[in-house]
Each structure stands twice: as C-alpha cells, then as structure tokens.
C-alpha cells in the first residue's frame, strides 16, 4: 500500500509538471465522459418525469382503445370504440371493477368574458377520478349525479384558467364551451407536461353531456380505462374483455382486431425500451470516443517514456525493479484518464442541467450515482489498458542504454 501511495504521488507530480499537455491528452476522455453524462442526465430526468406522470395510473388499470393505421385515416374508415363496447365492459365481463370511458366530443373552443382558448374537451364519469387518477385541487370532480342529470358543469385545468384570465379560484364562474354555458365546479390538479404537451390545457365535462352534445350521427373518439377487481386476475380479465369486445364488435373469429387492450404501464415499458436503446447507442458512441481518447493517452505516454528515458535509467540504477517502473507509469496513465473522466463528469452534469433548463418546461436533469461511478471507473480502466504498452516499454528499458540517452 505504501508503495502504491508512493507511486501515486509520483504520478501526480509528473502530471503536474506537464499540466497543459496532461490536460490536452485527457481531453478525449474528458469530452467522451462529458457527452455521456450530459445525455444520460437529460434522458434520465426525462424518464423519471415520465414514470412519475404515469405512476398515477394504477397497475390494475387496463385501457381499451381503437387501432387505426395510416390507411384508416386516409380512407376515412376510422375505427372507434362504441358506447356498446362500454356497456359490454361494464356488464358482460366478470372481474371488471370500474369502467371509466373518456369521450372527446368536437365542441370547439372555450370562452370566458371575451377571451377564447381551445382546450382538450373530455367527457368523463365519476369513475375517471379513481381510474385515471385525475382530481380537483379546488372544488370537486364530476359526480355520478352530474352524469345522471346531465348537468352543464365543468372541471378545468390550470392552463385554461390562466389562458382565460379567470380568478385564481374559478369555482362558480361560467364558461362557454361550444354553444353551451357550463358552470365551473372544480380546478384540476396541475400535472405538467409530457413530451412538451401540457396536461393542464383540458376540461372535463360529464360523460352524458358530452355524449348528448355530440349529436346522434357522429361517433366521437372514445377511450375506455377500466380496473380489475383482483390484480392477480389481470391477464384473465384482459383476455375475457378481449373476447367480449370481439363479440360486441362482431369481428369474424380470425379477423385482425381493430382494438387493443393495453396495460397502463405498457407506455412506460415502451418508453423505457426507447431509453434503453438510446442508452445502448450512446454507450457505443462513448466506447468509440473513449477508445480514441485511450489511444491519445497511449501516444502521449509513449512520448513521455521516450522523453524520460534517462530518468528511468537513473531510477533503475538506484534500484527500481521492473514492477516499480511499471506501476508508476500505469498509475500515471490511469490517473491522467481518471482526471479527464472526473472533469468530464462535472462538466457533463453542468451541461445536462444547462440543456434541461434551456428547454422550457423540460424536467430537471438527473444522473444516477452508479452511472457517475461507472464513468469514473471506466475512464480509469481506459488509462490502465492503454497505459500497459507505454508502461511495459518503460519497465523493460535497459538501464545502461537509458542512462546514456540524451
């Protein structure tokens, strides 16, 4: 240990003697590490925020949605979830607990005292509160009674309130949606953004009201989220629902389904997959940049060994063994690379925070500690690996030749 500490301080002193050169040599490692930390910090911050947003959706929640290919939109034959499907889920599938259909009626914009905005208008039932995890921060959410009685009430998002310059507490104000007046009964909790789209620029009205305003001939876009009674039966309930919906949609036994039932966490899974792919690609790029950085270190270390040939000769004359010289130069290479890595980590963190703060409403950057440790360890490893050739060259110098070297 004493020997290592000795070699460590010798290596530091030697790097310190050529500060500029050491810095330039390790620049490759520095930039590589900085890039990986910056990108990882942004990706991770993003991923964390996505996961948080979706954790509101319980894991016992399933979502029924129609499948539409590019072809469907082009020809206008768009698949939609029907009210029958909702009824089927509600009454014909054992194990389904609560069904929360969400309807998107095309009602146009919202207006308040001469100001207008175009929020996402959604028709929801009382169940949406639990199933989708939406709730009012002031006032209340839609109740079963609102739905039954077709009350013209609305629960609005904070963006809508702010856009229309309504009072901080908008309860009791009247809002014009389409051609109908709605009384505000609640303000939704703030949710922030996903992929840059605000989750607060929306209003909820009772499902029955949305349905009646849509008219009879038009079929609105609808999505149904539902929970299962017993989480352990999730897969079975999903399969049962699948069969029941196929029946209600009158699909031929071997026809491709025009709907899908997704688990709530499938989006998170998909996103994590994207993140993992991005990370893998990134790791490849970083690998290449560290390889280049490592070659740079090897190059300069070889130059340094040549320059210090006489010094090595002196040390050998004084009794340094091959191992002593080898350890000294290996440590020097590792330290050089590690320093680059450490500076890179710090700069990468700063860059990540900078990028995150430059993009409006972007989630804050975040790097797991293990990534930083791995980056530091890996950069040191690069130094050791690429230091082997120069160090063994130094160690195997003939002391007489080395002493004679000018």
């Amino acid at each position: 240990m004493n020997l290592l500490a000795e070699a460590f301080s010798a290596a530091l002193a030697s790097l310190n003697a050529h500060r500029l050169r050491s810095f330039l040599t390790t620049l490759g490692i520095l930039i590589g590490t900085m890039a990986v930390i910056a990108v990882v910090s942004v990706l991770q911050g993003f991923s964390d925020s996505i996961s948080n947003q979706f954790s509101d959706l319980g894991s016992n929640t399933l979502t029924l949605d129609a499948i539409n290919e590019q072809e469907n939109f082009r020809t206008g034959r768009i698949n939609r979830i029907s009210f029958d499907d909702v009824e089927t889920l509600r009454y014909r599938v054992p194990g389904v607990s609560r069904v929360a259909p969400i309807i998107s009626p095309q009602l146009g914009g919202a207006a308040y005292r001469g100001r207008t905005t175009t929020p996402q208008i959604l028709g929801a039932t009382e169940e949406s509160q639990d199933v989708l995890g939406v709730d009012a921060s002031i006032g209340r959410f839609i109740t079963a009674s609102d739905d039954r009685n077709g009350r013209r009430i609305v629960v609005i998002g904070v963006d809508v309130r702010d856009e229309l310059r309504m009072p901080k507490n908008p309860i009791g104000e009247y809002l014009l949606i389409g051609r109908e007046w709605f009384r505000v009964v609640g303000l939704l909790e703030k949710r922030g953004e996903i992929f840059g789209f605000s989750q607060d620029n929306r209003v909820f009205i009772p499902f029955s009201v949305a349905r009646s305003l849509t008219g009879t001939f038009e079929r609105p876009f609808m999505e149904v989220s539902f929970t299962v009674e017993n989480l352990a039966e999730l897969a079975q309930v999903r399969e049962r629902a699948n069969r029941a919906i196929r029946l209600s949609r009158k699909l031929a036994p071997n026809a491709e389904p025009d709907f899908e039932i997704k688990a709530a966490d499938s989006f998170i899974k998909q996103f994590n997959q994207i993140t993992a792919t991005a990370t893998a690609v990134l790791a490849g790029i970083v690998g290449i940049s560290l390889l280049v950085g490592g070659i740079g270190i090897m190059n300069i270390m070889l130059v340094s060994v040549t320059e210090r040939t006489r010094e090595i000769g002196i040390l050998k004359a004084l009794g340094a063994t091959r191992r002593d010289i080898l350890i000294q130069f290996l440590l020097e290479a590792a330290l050089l690379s590690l320093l680059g890595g450490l500076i890179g980590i710090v700069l990468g963190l700063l860059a990540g925070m900078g990028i995150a703060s430059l993009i409006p409403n972007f989630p804050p950057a975040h790097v797991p500690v293990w990534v930083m440790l791995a980056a530091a360890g890996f950069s040191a490893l690069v130094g050791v690996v690429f230091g082997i050739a120069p160090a063994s060259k130094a160690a195997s110098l003939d002391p007489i030749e080395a002493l004679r070297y000018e």
Partner: protein
Amino acid sequence: MIELRGIVKKYVLGEETVLALAGVDLFIGRNEYVALIGPSGSGKSTLMNIIGCLDSPSEGQYILNGRDTSSLRDDELAIVRNREIGFIFQSFHLLPRQTALQNVMQPLVYRRMPPAERRERAAHALEKVGLGDRLDHRPNQLSGGQRQRVAVARALVGEPSLLLADEPTGNLDSRTSLEIMALFDALHAQGQTVVIVTHEPDIAAHCRRTIRVRDGLVVEDSLNPPRAA
C-alpha cells in the same frame, strides 16, 4: 569483497561480435580506494557496468560480498544495486523535478522504507556532504559542485558497500573537482570502499590503487605512492 573471475563480455553488433572484456580477473577488498583508468573504447565502462550490476557478463563469475551475481535476473540485480552500490555519474543524473531531499530519498523508496525514516536518513546524508541547508532546492537551483554533492549523498544514503563513480569530476571546474575529490578522500578515510572511473591522472592520483584497462584486459594494477597531505 569484489571478485571477478574470467569476466568476458561480448556484444553482437550486426554480424560482428565485439569483445569488450576479454577475461578480466580482479579483486578489490573492503575500504580500498581504486581508480579505474583507460582510454575510451578500452572496456572500462563495460567493466564498471558489470561491477555496478547494471550489466551481466557473458562469461565468468562476479562475486559481490560473497554472492555470485553473474546469474541473477534483472530484478534481482536491481535489488543488489539498491543495497550494495552507490552510483555517481559524470552529469550528476539527478531527477530534475525533485528537491535535493527527494532525490536523496529515492533509493530508499525502493527499499520500502517508511517515509519518516527515509526523510531523516536523507537529510542526514545531505548534511554529511555539507548541504544541510539546501534540502528543498531543486537541481537547477544548485551549482554543479552542489549537484554532485547531492548525487554523492544519494549514493551514500543506502549505506552501500561500494561507491562507484563514473568520471565524477568530468563536468566540474578544477576547483570544484578538488572539493569533490576531497569528499571522496574523506569518505574513504571513514572506511568507505570507493571505485572511481576516470581518464584524468590528477583524479586517479587521489586513489591508493590504479587499475588500467586496455583492449578489454587489465594491463596494469599498481598501488599509488602515498600522497602528501
């Protein structure tokens, strides 16, 4: 103490084999003060390298303090150099970035000596050569004579059985040369075994014994007349 038996050293240069030492027999006892002289190309440097365990002979035996070193591996030779030999070079060969004290401490590093003890012994060695007030100076802050004194201190710090100096005054002016030679004289007087490789008769005259090498052979081995103090 030093015993060479039939030492032969050959170098292969291309297709030619050069015979640097053609069978040298030599004995140097404890506390001797020896000058190794000879023209360049005579083989005296090769002989010095072998005595200093920097090189191994092609044939023959080299027995240092009762131990045959001719068959030792590189790293074993390094340990022998560290314990038994104190080198002094013509161009001092100090480590430029290190202070006088650090330079003198360096051989003790390879002896795995604890730092505190190392420091103490190095400081003591520097005091012994009259540089007790220059511990933290770097080589470029010291004069030629002072640098060579640091080198002497470094050679002495490990208490080697042999002090081996290669043209120690070659880069010094005559007055400084005298100071350095006085230092060697004093060390010899204290019981140190000293071998000086030189081509200057003045320097060789300080020693008690002269060994002349020519064409890879010892051609003269004589005791010097005692010098007037």
